[in-house]
């Protein structure tokens, strides 16, 4: 799993039926120190995350599908937790 920041929302009317009702959020990966790294990705949100929040995300199909709890969902990324705090010894 990775740490990321919710930086936006994606609106899509025309999508695979497994996405119906799911919230699609843009997540920017971050280092433990809070520095943006890499490219933002689109994740389904199963925990009610909001804009600006630091989240825990899975970047793998099976895990993301389980987060969405729908059979044969063509997903590969999901927000599975909202991070309260990160303690890292190497700052």
């Amino acid at each position, binding site marked *: 799993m990775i740490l990321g920041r919710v*930086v936006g929302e994606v609106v*899509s009317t025309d*999508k*695979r039926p497994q996405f119906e009702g799911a919230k699609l959020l*843009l997540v920017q990966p971050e280092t433990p120190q809070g520095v943006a790294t890499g*490219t933002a*990705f689109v994740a389904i949100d199963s925990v009610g995350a909001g804009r600006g929040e630091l989240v825990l995300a899975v970047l793998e199909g099976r895990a993301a599908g389980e987060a969405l709890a729908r059979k*044969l969902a063509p*997903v*590969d990324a999901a927000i599975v937790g909202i991070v309260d705090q990160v303690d890292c010894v190497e700052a």
Partner: protein
Amino acid sequence: MQLARVLGTVVATRKEPAFEGIKLLLIQPLSAAGDDVGRPLVAVDAMSAGVGQQVFFVRGKEASFPWYPTEVPADAGIVGIVDHWSTVES
């Protein structure tokens, strides 16, 4: 998933039989700011997307799920058309 723009189409006559009837599109991944990021790639199209449209695509085995139980040997697939997106910055 990732945001992308459809750049074009790919035609392949000789291919894995499971690809029969499936549209192949050339897509360019996009950043949250809408800029091109990384290399273009070929994705199977489960949405009847058109050239120039913004889409989101899935990577890995899940790209083949829209054709289940056919086992399509694809590793990227378009699964939604993007109306628009908003970011904190814009």
